[in-house]
């Protein structure tokens, strides 16, 4: 990509500048590697391709801008934390708008693997935000309970109970039980 990058990498560090460049490139490479996973998480979390990629873009911009604030902790957890927070802010901003839910959304029109995908997406949509995030971070992204507790800034016990509720709720929804009726004022 950068002409002469290989040559720079082969010569021994000549001082602070070279080390700083290398650290910067490591950081960027690390971020870059995580983009596909962040997109997957964002897509499942926001359930809209454009919103999801907006979230990822904002996450990346923010991460790259705060590169100097990042002191070699767990890059992956840090990026998931930014994305999770951005999504929470986005939802807060939207909270005043009335939600539009599909009418008679039975899923009867879908079939095969499409139906499976559709069902799980619909079931996800019925979860509360925090529960959905926990479920996705554990199941889809393979983060540990500890990491998620740090991301959500809650005790591990809270992560566990969110996970248990999310799984129970999804299971009931997929099994065709009526999901709890949304309260209508």
């Amino acid at each position: 990509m950068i002409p002469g990058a290989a040559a720079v990498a082969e010569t021994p560090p000549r001082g602070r500048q070279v080390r700083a460049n290398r650290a910067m490139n490591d950081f960027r490479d690390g971020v870059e590697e995580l983009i596909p996973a962040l997109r997957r998480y964002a897509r499942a979390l926001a359930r809209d391709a454009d919103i999801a990629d907006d979230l990822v873009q904002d996450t990346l911009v923010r991460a790259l801008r705060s590169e100097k604030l990042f002191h070699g902790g767990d890059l992956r957890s840090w990026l998931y934390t930014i994305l999770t927070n951005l999504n929470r802010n986005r939802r807060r901003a939207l909270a005043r708008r009335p939600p539009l839910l599909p009418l008679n959304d039975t899923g009867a029109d879908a079939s095969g693997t499409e139906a499976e995908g559709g069902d799980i997406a619909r079931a996800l949509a019925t979860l509360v935000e925090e529960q959905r995030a926990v479920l996705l971070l554990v199941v889809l992204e393979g983060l540990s309970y500890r990491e998620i507790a740090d991301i959500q800034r809650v005790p591990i016990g809270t992560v566990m109970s969110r996970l248990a509720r999310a799984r129970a709720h999804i299971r009931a929804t997929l099994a065709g039980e009526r999901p709890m009726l949304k309260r209508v004022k």
Partner: protein
Amino acid sequence: MTDPKIPVTEDELHAYVDGELPDERHGDVEAWLSSHPADAERVASWRAIAEALHARYDQVFDEPVPPRLQIDRLTNRPPRRWIAGAIAATLAAFIAGGGAGWFAHGAAATPSIFRNFTVDALDAHRLYVVEVRHPVEVEGSERAHLQQWLSKRVGYVVRAPELDGAGLKLVGGRLLPGPDAPAAFLMYESASGERFTLYTSRAKTDATQMRYASDDRDGALFWTDRGVGYVLSGPTDRDRLSEVAKQVYEQTDKSGG
């Protein structure tokens, strides 16, 4: 099968499924599951949820990363910074101007070119976006032909930008008379039927500052780049318009105009 000495808790079942259970408890949990079918069924259902999630969302992981999320673009892109600054300045000026009616403030350069271009482009925009059956002469499905034909007629390389990132698909294009020379007119549409048009023609100016204009129904962003004037018209939503404009700008910049 005998129950383990210590009963298995629900937390442990989750930890078991998620690989967080201490090794020494594994045997106990497996024994518990073989003698507690309801729990075994629950665990199976959790695994099914995991499979369904991966089946649905792993494809996103495997997709190529879209250009706007590529790290080089996010870290190293002077044109984008330039344009973002230009747009911000334009929008600030627009808001300060009260946003009513025509608005053509901004620095010194060539208000007449700006005005001619935007008036023509917005006229075309209004005329054709309402067309349901014949909005374009050449359909977007014939992209290569469309680009070749328009390029030949307007005298510079016309490349229809990919605006999928903004949720827009190319409907097609047509040739129009322009202020000084023929104009290429491209129309895009979102899934919800929102339409944007991109109007380009030779412009005798090097001013590159981006300008915004709007009336009560339509908004337009105008800029010039290497002798070509661009007007992107769409809804008056400035954020949306500048989002699309950025993508157009980046791509025309890349293709070398």
